[in-house]
């Protein structure tokens, strides 16, 4: 990868990781006396790498060693908690005091707050080397925008509508791409999923707030998100993973629910037949997802599909044997089935490694 091609944090981090691996491997080769580079050449390489790492650290704030990586993870967790705390604080602050304000003051505050916080986000993004604070400000701006729409709705007694979720989704997804922020993308995906699922429910005759009562309402958005995860978005760190994980969860959770409570399905069929149908779909789709995950190298997909495959399996075991078997035998079967699944996966791993 040449230096000219690098224009995102993700690419810079990959390059630095590659350099660090190269240095570690070179040291082993030298220790084993398999290779010996001339001091001049070694110095040139080291200087070149140092310059690169320094530049990337300055431009993209990447992690240049393991300790820094661990610290970065800690900072991400803390900034997430800070954003949650600030968001909740804004929410309760509004509720605590806003009833004492006149409607014009309320409207001014409601409309101005997300705009000001968005301004703060841009300011921090522009002047901050790392983007931790700008991401917190962006989440606060979303919290304020959420309150903005919700509370105007309450002041004027407006009938609740799923369209609000479309607006929140548009705002958060736009900010997620502007800031390269995965958490905002997650929030945006949740909002968009609610909007699409509610609209799908309305199309089939439900009241929109009851969209969760028909789990199949989530399937269209799950498929759409899965397709989006294959779109080219290398500039954005981990966005494809977020789309894929959301798609998997929005597919497998409703599938699990409807495979146990068939009467809430859209399908006009006896509940037992619906449950059997969805259980079969559950087994086949989770096995297929594991296969795709292995083929494409999507670890997240493999983990989620694996988990759901085992849940589908254990749910079936429970249905078949919980009442009729002694408990020690039931749990013995659970343990043995776990070992069998493990052996199968181990075999798949070996085959995959040889390929």
């Amino acid at each position, binding site marked *: 990868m040449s230096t000219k091609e690098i224009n995102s944090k993700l690419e810079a981090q990959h390059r630095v990781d590659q350099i660090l691996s190269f240095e570690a491997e070179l040291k082993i080769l030298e220790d084993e006396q398999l290779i010996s580079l001339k001091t001049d050449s070694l110095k040139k390489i080291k200087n070149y790498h140092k310059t690169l790492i320094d530049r990337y650290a300055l431009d993209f704030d990447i992690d240049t060693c393991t300790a820094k990586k661990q610290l970065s993870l800690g900072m991400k967790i803390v900034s997430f908690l800070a954003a949650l705390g600030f968001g909740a604080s804004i929410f309760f602050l509004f*509720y605590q005091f806003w009833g004492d304000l006149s409607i014009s003051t309320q409207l001014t505050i409601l*409309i101005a707050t997300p705009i000001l916080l968005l301004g703060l986000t841009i300011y921090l*993004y522009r002047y901050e080397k790392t983007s931790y604070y700008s991401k917190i400000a962006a989440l606060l701006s979303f919290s304020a925008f959420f309150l903005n729409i919700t509370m105007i709705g309450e002041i*004027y007694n407006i*009938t609740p509508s799923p369209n609000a979720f479309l607006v929140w989704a548009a705002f958060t997804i736009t*900010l997620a791409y502007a800031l390269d922020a995965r958490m905002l993308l997650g929030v945006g995906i949740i909002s968009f999923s609610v909007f699409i699922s509610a609209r799908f429910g309305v199309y089939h005759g439900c009241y929109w707030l009851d969209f969760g009562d028909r789990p199949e309402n989530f399937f269209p958005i799950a498929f759409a998100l899965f397709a989006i995860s294959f779109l080219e978005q290398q500039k954005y760190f981990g966005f494809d993973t977020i789309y894929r994980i959301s798609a998997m969860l929005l597919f497998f959770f409703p599938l699990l629910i409807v495979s146990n409570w068939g*009467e809430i399905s859209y399908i*006009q069929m006896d509940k037992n037949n619906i449950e059997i149908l969805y259980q079969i779909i559950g087994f086949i789709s989770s096995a297929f997802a594991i296969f795709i995950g292995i083929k494409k190298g999507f670890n997240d997909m493999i983990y989620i599909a694996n988990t759901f495959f085992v849940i589908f399996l254990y749910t079936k075991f429970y249905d078949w044997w919980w009442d009729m078997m002694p408990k020690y035998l039931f749990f013995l079967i659970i343990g043995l089935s776990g070992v069998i699944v493990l052996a199968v996966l181990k075999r798949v791993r070996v085959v995959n490694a040889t390929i």
Partner: protein
Amino acid sequence: MQLSKSSLRLFALAFLILIISNVVILFRVYLSHSSPPTTQITLTQRELRLPYKNKQDSSIYLRISYRVSTTDTSCYNQNNPKWLDTKLLKKLGFNIDQYRDLKYNKTIMPRKVFVVLQYGGVNYKNLLKNAKERVLKHQLLYEKNKNNKSYKQHYEDAKIDLQNEQLYRSKLFVIDAGLNPKKLRQKYDDDQKFIIVGAIVSIYRYHNTKNKKKFYGFIKKLLIPKIYVPQKYHYIFDYKTKNKLKYEVQLNYTNLYEPYIKSIKRISY
């Protein structure tokens, strides 16, 4: 960090989303509030109840209290009006025939409809009349059996029931439902007695004594069950004297069938 062109465009788009969504929502409010109201009614503390104070929330809402006149004693759900029969449920979009023919259980999804709320109409007058008749009946029985504690208790209960009906219970009754609010308004054209509002209607199914499938509809909830009280009226709602508080609310409904408070007047403590 250098603000790239694409980031700049995306931030500009985020600003636009904020501005446009607020403009749209406020324009919608302006249009609906400047159109002639579909209902102009005066309700009291009996129909617009003040909920308990939430210390974490300084705003005040009034909850719409409506009643359903149920005379069908075989009904499982007390929120089921007798007039909400199979014929009307079909008109509201429930595919009753399909569900009747099913040999298995199926969850039936609730539907959004419009309902008519009548203030102080024949339903209320009938209930008041029944309450008065009950008092007279139990009074006679008690006077004939002065030593019987049970008769005395029934008489006392009937008096309390009448008092509640005369002074405290809501006079607002759900009397009809439909899908077209304009048609409902034409049918119930007195906009000072009848309110047209959005509501959720649900149905449930049971087997009667002859093991035949029967359906009952019931009002699950109003789309807007509570009304926001602007700050300029907060002085009226003194929570310390909540139980004695009496007020009159001039309530209007917009052309989108959404309520707003025109004025509130305290009657007395």
